[in-house]
C-alpha cells in the first residue's frame, strides 16, 4: 500500500463526507443520539449505584446491652462485634447519650423527661458492609453475652437488599439492551449510507479495484462518523453529568461520591465504541456489495 494510496483513501473519505453532507450529518446525529442514550444510562447507573451505596451505609443495627455490663465487658463486646464478618464499623452509645437524644426529640421543656434513674440501656450502633449481610450480623451479635436485644429495620433491610440487587440487575440489562440498540442504530445508518452507493461499489469492482481499496474510504468515513458522534455525545454527557452531580450533591442523603475516573472510563469507552462501531459497521455493510 503506497503512501499516495493512503492519501487517496483519506481524500476519498473526506470528499464523500462533504458530498453526502446531509447523510453524513444524519449519521453523526444518529451515532451521537445512540451513544448519548447509552452513555446517559451508564452514568445514571453509576450514580445510582453510588447513591445506593450511601443509603446502604445508613442502615444501622442497634444493639442494646443488658443492665450492669461493665466497661471491660463492653470493650470485649466491641471487639467481638468488630470481628464479626461483614461489619463495617461500630459505635458505642452510652445510656446518657441515648437519654440526651430522647430529650431532644420531645421538645425541651424541662421536667417532662426527668427520671428517678436513667431507664435507657447502653447500646452499639453497627454498620454492615452490605445491606444483605445485616440479618446475618444481627443474628450473630444477638448470641453474644451481655446483649439484651438487637434491633434492625428488619423488613426494610431485607427489601432494600433485594431492591439493590434488582436495581443492579435491571440496570445491567438496560445497559446491555441500550448498547445493542446503539450498535444497531449506528450500523443501520452506515448500512443505508452504503446501500445508497451500492452501484458505485460495483463499478469500482469492475474497474479492477481490490476489496480493500474500496473498503478503506468507507472504513475511514465510518470512523470519522463514529468519532464525530462520540465526541458530540461525550461532550454533552460530560457537562450534563457534571451539573446533575453538582445538583444532586446538595442532598445530604445522596452523598454521591462519583469518582471522576469512572466517568472518564465511560466517556473513553463511548469514544472507542463509536470509532469501532463506525469502522466495523462499514466493513460489514460494504461486504454485501463487494460480491461482484
Amino acid at each position, binding site marked *: 500500500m*503506497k503512501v499516495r*494510496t493512503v492519501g487517496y483513501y483519506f481524500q476519498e473519505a473526506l470528499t464523500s463526507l462533504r458530498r453526502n453532507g446531509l447523510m453524513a450529518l444524519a449519521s453523526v446525529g444518529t451515532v451521537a443520539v445512540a451513544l448519548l442514550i447509552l452513555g446517559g444510562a451508564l452514568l445514571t447507573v453509576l450514580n445510582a449505584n453510588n447513591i445506593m451505596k450511601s443509603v446502604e451505609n445508613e442502615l444501622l443495627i442497634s444493639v442494646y446491652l443488658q443492665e450492669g455490663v461493665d466497661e471491660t465487658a463492653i470493650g470485649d463486646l466491641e471487639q467481638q462485634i468488630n470481628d464479626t464478618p461483614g461489619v463495617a464499623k461500630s459505635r458505642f452509645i452510652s445510656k446518657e447519650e441515648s437519654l440526651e437524644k430522647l430529650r431532644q426529640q420531645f421538645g425541651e421543656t424541662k421536667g417532662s423527661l426527668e427520671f428517678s434513674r436513667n431507664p435507657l440501656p447502653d447500646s452499639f450502633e453497627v454498620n454492615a458492609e452490605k445491606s444483605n449481610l445485616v440479618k446475618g450480623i444481627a443474628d450473630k451479635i444477638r448470641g453474644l453475652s451481655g446483649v439484651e436485644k438487637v434491633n434492625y429495620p428488619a423488613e426494610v433491610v431485607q427489601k432494600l437488599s433485594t431492591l439493590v440487587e434488582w436495581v443492579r440487575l435491571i440496570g445491567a440489562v438496560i445497559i446491555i439492551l441500550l448498547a445493542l440498540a446503539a450498535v444497531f442504530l449506528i450500523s443501520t445508518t452506515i448500512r443505508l449510507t452504503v446501500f445508497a452507493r451500492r452501484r458505485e461499489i460495483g*463499478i469500482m469492482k469492475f474497474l*479492477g*479495484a481490490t476489496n480493500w481499496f474500496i473498503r478503506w474510504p468507507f472504513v475511514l468515513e465510518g470512523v470519522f462518523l463514529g468519532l464525530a458522534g462520540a465526541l458530540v455525545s461525550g461532550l454533552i454527557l460530560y457537562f450534563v453529568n457534571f451539573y446533575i452531580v453538582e445538583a444532586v450533591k446538595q442532598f445530604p442523603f445522596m452523598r454521591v461520591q462519583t469518582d471522576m475516573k469512572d466517568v472518564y472510563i465511560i466517556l473513553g469507552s463511548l469514544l472507542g465504541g463509536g470509532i469501532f462501531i463506525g469502522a466495523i459497521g462499514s466493513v460489514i455493510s460494504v461486504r454485501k456489495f463487494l460480491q461482484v
Partner: protein
Amino acid sequence: MIQMYNVSMIYPNGVKALTDVSLHVRKGDFIFLVGPSGAGKSTLTKLIFREELPTRGQIMVNGINIARMKDKEVPYLRRKIGVIFQDFRLLPNKSVYDNVAFALEVAEASSKEIKKLVPAVLKLVGLTNKADMLPTELSGGEQQRVSIARAIINNPIMIIADEPTGNLDPETSWEIMNLLVEINKLGTTIIMATHAKDIVDGLKKRVIAIENGRVVRDEQKGAYGYES
C-alpha cells in the same frame, strides 16, 4: 489471448443467453461482435472480464482459467482489460477527470503519472473543457466518451467495447474508431459489440455474429450482414 470452449450461460432467471460458444481470439485481433438486440453480445463480453461466471464451459484469458481464478486475483485481471460499458458506469460523485483518473488510482499509479496521462486522454476523446463536470452534467455522447477515455488510459492488453458509439454522431464515431484502430495497431486486442453497420462494413475486421446465444458466423475481414 482468449479461448472459449463450449461456453453456455444461463442467467438465474432461466434465460439462456449463450449456448455452446467456442471462440479463439489471438493477441492483436480486432473483433466486431454483431447480432440482434438480446442476442448475447454483452453477456459474452461480461464473461471475459468475469462480471459473470459461465454456467458451463471453460474460458481462458491471457493463459488463466477464469472459472478457477481466485477471487483475489480478479482485480488484477480486470486492470489489464479496459471495458467500455454499454451503460457507461461512471461514478456519479466524481468529476470527469476523477472518473478517468480512477482507473489509474485503482492500479496505484503515481500521482505524477496521473497528472500526465489524464489530460492527454481527455484531449483524445475531445473532453478537455468538460474535465471538472459531473457525469450528470454531460450529454449522452460525452458520457460515452468519458467511459472510452477511462477504458484506454490504463494501456490495457485488451479493450472490450460494448456499443461504444451508440450515442455518438457519425463523425465523432469515426474519430473514436480511428483511435481504437491506432491502439489496436500498437498490439492491444479489441473486442467490440456494435450495431453500427457503416463502421463494421467500413473497417473490414474480423466479425463474429451471434444470434440467439449461438455464434452463427465468424469471418476475417467480414461485414455487418451476410455478404449477399
